[in-house]
């Protein structure tokens, strides 16, 4: 058989950027196919188990680079299945950032004011809980109390978690067994399916070429369901529109590999990568001081000893999110949980070298229940650059699942390093006061810096030299190819990014609908939220119209 499979819109990746666009395009009448490299798991398959081969390693991805390792999702639903579901909006000053290019890096059309209606659309589609103090975990409460003791404020973080269903098991990274986390598996994706979109798991896209009629041919390989090092076949699909949403650590790699067939890529493809300024600190608490200084008591004889209990981040300190402060000195400090393994290896002792292994580390692990992890999100300098792509995907896979070696190189600039040092010092100041804790940062010496928030590797902007996409997310010089994932975000956000990635994806939809119509696809814009609500659509109507007619 030599008939070529074809569709109107082909979406690569099923995380936030992919799912949102797929839903709207399918609801508007287009034929939509989504290709996802990872497996498709249902609630009952999410396990509480660290064994290799359990859901934890099946749906999670860890790519080691040179100076930066990236953690992300590898399954239908992408990062939304493994993430911690903190969903704050980015502060106003972020959109005015200049970063490394000495002029505003966001497109002139986007500010907090013009993005708010799109944030509202997301909030209507993904139920987000404004957590109260009753919802805050012990570790979040401890962080809040320490902040207050040090003269700071602290906020419960808005989260896409149904707190009535949550059992505070802290297994979020292995997928939520209790359907408490409002991942894309419960909103945009089922709605897209209901409108006829198809999702094909274990399909890893490799490259794109042009067809004679102005469309594109997308090449994929089929990945073995257990050993991701193995491929079991390959194929192609032709599409009038291609939407890349493979995540900021994978989208630019697909484009780099496609350069041979598509022609030159904009300079900013695979450059300006940001890790969202992430860095972690571990505090080991003195339980007696927690009780004496902060007056905390669980009521069961323990003051804290609750590292294992909770639902990821529940409380953040936002005092430094102040637009009047200079760039690179604004950051948030968020309480977090990382499970043993990923969450213990890089923690350092406060003693003498060696600090990440050895006897002192073993002693530190003995006090694991009294750990508190604090997550910094500073403004970095977009200093990440991707080298030539590997043979397939975005990494040479080392392990059967999860672990691979990628091509990202990240050498933190003086700005980034100074911001990390400033945030380290502040966490130390807050948590070492009055003998509460001993605080150390995670080491960057083993796998480089690390991020669960890859951004900006194929970004939007007004300046063609420093942005790969125009402000409608279309790839410069390659009409009909759009990028709607974290790679489109221009730079570090100082808060968790999924809400902003999602709002930008919502905002990109009218432009993609317009491009599809120009290519003869019968599709309209204007679907309600996945559950049928229409308030968000009304709120964004005027902005959508402008984008549709541009």
């Amino acid at each position, binding site marked *: 058989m030599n008939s070529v499979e074809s569709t109107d819109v082909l979406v690569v990746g099923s995380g936030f950027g992919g799912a949102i666009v797929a839903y709207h395009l399918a609801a508007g009448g287009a034929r939509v196919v989504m290709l996802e490299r990872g497996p498709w798991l249902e609630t009952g398959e999410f396990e509480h188990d660290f064994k290799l081969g359990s859901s934890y390693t099946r749906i999670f991805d860890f790519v080691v680079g040179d100076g930066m390792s990236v953690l992300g999702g590898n399954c239908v639903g992408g990062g939304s299945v493994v993430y911690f579901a903190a969903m704050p909006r980015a502060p106003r000053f972020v959109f005015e950032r200049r970063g490394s290019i000495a002029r505003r890096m966001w497109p002139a059309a986007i500010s907090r004011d013009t993005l708010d209606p799109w944030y509202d659309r997301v909030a209507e589609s993904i139920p987000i809980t404004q957590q109260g103090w009753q919802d*805050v975990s012990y570790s979040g409460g401890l962080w809040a109390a320490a902040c207050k003791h040090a003269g700071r404020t602290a906020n419960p973080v808005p989260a896409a978690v149904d707190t009535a269903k949550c059992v505070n098991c802290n297994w979020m990274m292995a997928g939520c067994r209790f359907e408490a986390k409002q991942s894309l598996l419960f909103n945009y994706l089922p709605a897209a399916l209901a409108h006829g979109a198809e999702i094909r798991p274990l399909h890893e896209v490799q490259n794109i070429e042009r067809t004679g009629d102005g469309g594109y041919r997308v090449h994929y390989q089929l990945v073995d369901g257990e050993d991701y090092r193995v491929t079991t076949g390959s194929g192609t699909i032709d599409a009038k529109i291609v939407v890349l949403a493979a995540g900021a650590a994978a989208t630019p790699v697909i484009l780099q590999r496609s350069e041979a067939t598509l022609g030159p890529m904009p300079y900013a493809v695979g450059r300006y990568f940001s890790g969202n300024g992430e860095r972690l600190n571990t505090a080991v608490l003195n339980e007696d001081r927690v009780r004496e200084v902060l007056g905390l008591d669980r009521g069961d004889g323990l003051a804290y000893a609750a590292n294992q209990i909770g639902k990821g981040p529940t409380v953040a300190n936002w005092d430094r999110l102040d637009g009047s402060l200079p760039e690179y000195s604004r950051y948030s400090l968020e309480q977090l949980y990382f499970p043993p393994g990923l969450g213990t*290896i890089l923690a350092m002792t406060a003693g003498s070298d*060696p600090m990440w292994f050895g006897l002192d580390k073993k002693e530190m692990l003995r006090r694991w229940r009294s750990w508190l992890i604090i997550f910094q999100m500073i403004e970095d300098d977009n200093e990440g650059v991707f080298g030539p792509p590997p043979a397939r995907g975005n990494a040479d896979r080392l392990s059967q699942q999860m672990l691979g070696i990628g091509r990202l190189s990240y050498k933190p600039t003086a700005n980034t390093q100074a911001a990390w040092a400033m945030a380290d010092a502040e966490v130390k100041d807050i948590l070492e006061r009055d003998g509460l804790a001993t605080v150390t940062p995670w080491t960057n010496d083993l796998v480089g810096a690390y991020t669960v928030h890859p951004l900006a590797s194929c970004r939007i902007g007004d300046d063609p030299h420093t942005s790969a996409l125009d402000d409608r997310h279309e790839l410069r010089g390659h009409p009909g190819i759009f990028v709607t994932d974290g790679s489109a975000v221009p730079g570090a956000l100082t808060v968790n990014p999924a809400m902003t990635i999602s709002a930008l994806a919502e905002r990109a939809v009218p432009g993609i609908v317009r491009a599809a119509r120009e290519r003869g696809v019968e599709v309209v814009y204007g679907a309600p939220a996945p559950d049928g609500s229409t308030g968000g659509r009304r709120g964004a109507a005027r902005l959508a119209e402008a984008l549709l007619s541009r």
Partner: protein
Amino acid sequence: MAGVSPDGGAVAAGAIELLEWDATGVTDGLDGYAGGLNRHALAHAAERGLALDESVPPFVALSFEDRTALVRWLTAPGHPEKALWVSLALFCNMAYDSAAHTHTAEALAAGHPGLTAMGIAMPDADGLWRFPAYSYGRPLADLHPDTTPTGSPA
């Protein structure tokens, strides 16, 4: 290999089992790793004029302090073989901290040295963790004055 700690370390925790499982991707290289480690141990001893017990492999013959120093050197930024030794070290760590070669609930029930030392709680009878008590349940700080009605920073 003898550790220095009175209770079990990575080996007792199952590091060898984990490394010998081909899911890790390092299994094929293990003989090469062992040979390489012993060569580095010999060089380390020679540089320092240390006499090694020849009835055991050179790395095992090193004192605890010298073994630690050698591992530190091999995994430090700039060492040409760093990536290899770091991935080996990561899996050894994982055996202790997360027992990645075995089901977590079973490891805990069997008294796995790492998970037990860390004080990881036992799951419920169905193998799932739930923590009915999880919150101090009261306001513990003032909110940032610029918080918007959606709970986000302004």
